[in-house]
């Protein structure tokens, strides 16, 4: 399995997630129409598009967070490594351990910094003892580039950190369950430019270990961090391809209008 992965990455990068003909309805409102997207492994994929175009909704389909909204109905096929995530046998709990998520607004739990990061490993039983847990917390905080700032106050409440620190804490929390895919829903929209730069840098680092999907409002951000970009418009994927191609040579006129600032 591992060998194949190595091999395919060299040739054509393997598809981590495949979505085919995905439809999402909120009550009678048809929010996502016929979306086909492949998410590649060890790649940052950006979803861009005007607000209300369905990019966040689609992102939430990938780890079945839409299950928590009663009126929401998802149709179509989404597979992760060939397994249908909407199969009745699939437990969303296991799925979400595999497909982590970082939200728009930093949402640290009202607990200590340590407990925030340790939460995932604890509930999934990933560590056997306190020492191992300590190691996981430290390495995740390091990966999230937060360790040096908080190592002296791990027992301080996570809500006491600055906005950028909180968001990096949430990223550390998400990668502590060692997911294979990390979904990020506009992770920088509540942050100032400096914090945004830190998080973007972090996303680039994470690419070596995870497949990252990021929803963003900012086209510059998409251009900076992603290798592949999907442009959503009114619930459809208008165009999907290499980021450089989307930004330099868009095929669809709507994409062009959007990236040149005429719609959005």
């Amino acid at each position, binding site marked *: 399995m591992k060998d194949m992965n190595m091999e395919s990455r060299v040739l054509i990068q393997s598809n981590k997630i495949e979505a085919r003909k995905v439809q999402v309805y909120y009550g009678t409102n048809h929010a996502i129409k016929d979306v086909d997207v492949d998410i590649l492994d060890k790649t940052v994929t950006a979803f861009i598009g005007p607000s209300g175009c369905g990019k966040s909704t689609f992102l939430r389909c990938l780890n079945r967070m839409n299950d928590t909204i009663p009126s929401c109905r998802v149709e179509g096929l989404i597979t992760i490594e060939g397994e249908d995530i909407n199969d009745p046998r699939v437990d969303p709990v296991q799925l979400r351990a595999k497909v982590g998520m*970082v939200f728009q607004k930093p949402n640290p739990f009202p607990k200590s910094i340590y407990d925030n990061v340790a939460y995932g490993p604890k509930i999934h039983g990933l560590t056997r003892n306190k020492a191992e847990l300590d190691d996981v917390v430290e390495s995740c905080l390091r990966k999230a580039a937060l360790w040096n700032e908080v190592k002296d106050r791990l027992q301080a409440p996570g809500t006491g950190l600055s906005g950028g620190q909180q968001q990096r804490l949430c990223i550390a929390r998400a990668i502590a369950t060692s997911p294979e895919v990390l979904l990020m829903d506009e992770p920088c929209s509540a942050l100032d430019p400096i914090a945004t730069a830190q998080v973007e840098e972090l996303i680039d680092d994470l690419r070596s270990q995870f497949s990252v999907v990021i929803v963003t409002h900012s086209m510059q951000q998409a251009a900076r961090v992603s290798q592949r970009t999907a442009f959503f418009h009114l619930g459809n994927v208008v165009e999907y391809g290499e980021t450089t191609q989307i930004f330099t040579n868009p095929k669809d006129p709507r994409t062009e209008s959007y990236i040149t600032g005429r719609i959005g």
Partner: protein
Amino acid sequence: MKSAFSFPFAALTLFAGAAFSQDQAVAEATSSSVLYRLIFALGIVVFLIAAFTVGRNRAKTMRSKVSEMHSLPSFHGAVTLQYAALGIVLAIVLHLILGRPLGLGGAVAASLVLGGAGALFGLSTIKADFRARTFTERTIMVALILCSLVAVLTTVGIVASLVVETGHFFELYPASEFFFSTVWNPRFGGGSSLGILPLVWGTLYVSAIALVVAVPIGLMSAIYLAEYASKSVRAWVKPAIEILAGIPTIVYGLFALITVGPLLRDYFAQPLGFGDSSSSVMTAGLVMGIMVIPFVSSLSDDIINAVPQSLRDGSLGLGATPSETVRSVVIPAALPGIVGAILLAASRAIGETMIVVMGAGAAAKLSLNPFEAMTTVTVKIVSQLTGDTEFASPETLVAFALGLTLFTITLGLNVVALVIVRKYREQYE
């Protein structure tokens, strides 16, 4: 402006009723005295309406002559009415202070004279530049302020009456005995032991059982309603549970007396050898627990709903199950508010009267057996103050000391709970 005056009218009607309630010399038979009072009250109303109309008409005539007036005619009418009402109030107060010297007839005469004088003075104020609207609005404002002071006066009245009578009690009975004696044995005729400890024990025991029943049920219901229930289930179940809070406590008392008490006695206390009393701490505690469920569940439900959805998303997004999310994220976040809700429920249980009067019994005891009849502070307040009360004996006055203790405990719980809940709300606003 008319709606603003319905209040003075209503107050005056009642006031007039009170003033002549005991004019037995004037009206022997009850029914005719009622009739007189009604006629008098009605007379006042008619008189005031007349004052208003005359004042307004006079202002109207004036307006047709002079070019410009500051206030509308009806405000001038209102000023006339105010002075007339002032005269009548003065007359009635005089009548009451002087001990009703001339009976109802005198009161009517005085009202007519003083009220008429007031109305005349009111009419004399009607001038083009008189700010009748400002005057009226100021009067109304004073009335509004006085009304909002009623709440303060109530508290002052409660505290004053409790403290003064408790002071009298401690002149007759040593405070140390009251607070530390373990015997409650009032004897009308002297030589009573009036220790509060057995009563406090009973109160706390009953309240503890009530909370043991209500907190798990209330909290789990709130969690289910907030986190699991569909919208339609919630729309029906939440009000249904809240019905429990709307049922008068006397109904719970009767339920304890005729249903729960005998049931517990026949199926638990007697077979298990815990005694054969149908009124017991357990009976009262269980029934009170049912009553308190909505106090826990409603407030907890509000508080759990106030926990931001983003926290839930964060936890679910990490692969936590909903119950793990509730236990490790939602409840800790909502904890201060839930503690506040439980404190309010406890205060409610401690101050509850009818359920314990009818369900717990009257014997003051320090016992651990939950199937034994015990008594509480509120039960003893009722039993010492109902029937023929003689206000000089410590056996009666002790009720005020009990009342003061109860008031202090519940006030403390309420203040702490309200502060906690308020702080909690601010945190997420």
